[in-house]
């Protein structure tokens, strides 16, 4: 299993959000994606899931082209995701959110994320931390080949962040391709052996997190040219 992004470009109203970006992630590999605001991280997830169409390039999963497929077909091909702010179905129950119209049993997944006691509540009643865990359970429940996480620990305190990281370590099947967009470098270094840095829609770094702080272009992107030198 291999997810490859090949020379993908995305434009919004003439402004380039991603410019000929290429990335390949192998089965079992966990890629962290970092970068300043507006770097194109969420756009990357959107273009892989089919919510946004690229103007150029292709996205393939194990040789099958995903580009141009509607989002639901991409999902059925085995790509699951979470959103920067959880997008739950607030008027459905917690268990219904995990099933999300699929023929599966919600209970094991709810147990996994510790929400089993709340299965009968409406999703609107959850705390932000619980909402994150529920969205994660929904993404995991389809047993996806590819799991795309958009700031899974965004807006959470240190304890909850640790909970989510531990949960991901424990719950994600070993062969799953995982891509994590995250601001907190600590989470990335803990979960991922490899990290890509995006800046203004281009990939400026791809390597182990330990090499990140020594990279000149990364420092420039984060700190500005003068201070980096």
């Amino acid at each position, binding site marked *: 299993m291999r997810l490859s992004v090949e020379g993908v470009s995305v434009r919004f109203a003439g402004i380039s959000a991603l410019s000929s970006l290429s990335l390949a992630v192998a089965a079992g590999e966990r890629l962290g994606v970092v970068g300043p605001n507006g770097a194109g991280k969420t756009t990357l997830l959107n273009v892989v*899931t*089919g*919510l946004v169409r690229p103007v150029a390039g292709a996205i393939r999963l194990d040789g099958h082209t995903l580009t141009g497929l*509607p*989002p*639901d077909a*991409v*999902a*059925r091909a085995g790509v*699951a*995701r979470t*959103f920067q702010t959880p*997008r*739950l*179905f*607030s*008027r*459905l*129950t917690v268990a*219904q959110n995990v*099933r*999300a*119209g*699929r*023929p599966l049993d919600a209970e094991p997944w709810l147990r996994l994320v510790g929400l089993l006691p709340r299965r*009968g509540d*409406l999703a*609107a009643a959850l705390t932000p931390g619980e909402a994150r865990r529920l969205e994660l359970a*929904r*993404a995991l429940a*389809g047993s996806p080949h590819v799991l795309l996480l958009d700031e899974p620990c965004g807006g959470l305190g240190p304890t909850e962040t640790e909970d989510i990281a531990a949960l991901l370590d424990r719950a994600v099947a070993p062969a799953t391709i995982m891509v994590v967009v995250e601001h907190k470098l600590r989470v990335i270094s803990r979960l991922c052996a490899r990290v890509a840095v995006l800046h203004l829609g281009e990939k400026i770094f791809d390597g182990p997190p330990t090499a990140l702080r020594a990279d000149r272009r990364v420092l420039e992107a984060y700190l500005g040219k003068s201070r980096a030198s």
Partner: protein
Amino acid sequence: MSDYFVSLLIRIGIEAFVALSAYLLLLMGRMSFGQQGFFVIGAYAAGLATALYGMPLLPGVALGALVAALGGALFAGPMAAPRGLAFAAGSLAFGELVRVALLDLYFQGQVGPDLIGPAGPDGFRGIRALFTSGVSVTTYAVGIWLALGVTLLATAFFLRSRWGEALRMIGEDEEAAATVGLPVRRVKVSALAGAGGLAGLGGGLFAHYATYVEPGHADVMLGVHSLAYAFIGGLGTPLGPIIGVALDIGFLESFRFLAGYRMIIFGGLVMGLLIVRPRGLLDEVAVHRLSRFLMRGRR
């Protein structure tokens, strides 16, 4: 039963089908101002089947509903994707298109001594299958309510199924629903077809009660009222729209002194309710609490 009461029952029953069809689409997050179009499509088709081609009453009405459902599926071709304002505008245009097109529809045939069939602005007269089959109006009223009961049970069943969950998911966040693999387009097409069929069923029942149907029956106010009924009763249960219809036609209209002011009062009721309960009296939260409460009682 008095004649007035029977006619009231029939009107509530028929309107309930249209309100239910608007309700189904509201669950999917689509506000349709065009369900009256499917209502008259069903009415004309059922009328043609019985009056012109001699079909018996029940299969004729069923055929009318089927034709309207087919219309709904075709309507879904261009209208499955638009939402919000775009869907509202497109459905309004559709409803009016049907009305205007019927003004020009002439399709008459010789039945016995009479010319029967749609005659443009004069409408379609002589749909007499109900009375030639010897069914009394009271029996018809009972039949309509039986059909409504069955439809309600079926709707409730569908809404509890995965399909119903899918409908609500699309209504809340279509993109999120797609990213978990829900076949959004298929669900939307089936809902639009189903909603068309429900409105068409109401139309066929109406045509045989009134014995005629005309382009004016596709007045946009029918669609507007159906939406209001679905809203005032609440989006949490398919009983919501029925409550809405009963409240308006059954309750407000039976006060004779309110006669002319009915729409003003009803409109004000909807307006005021929206400020405190934007998803109607029995909204999802209320229904959820209620069902929990009932379950607890059973334990």
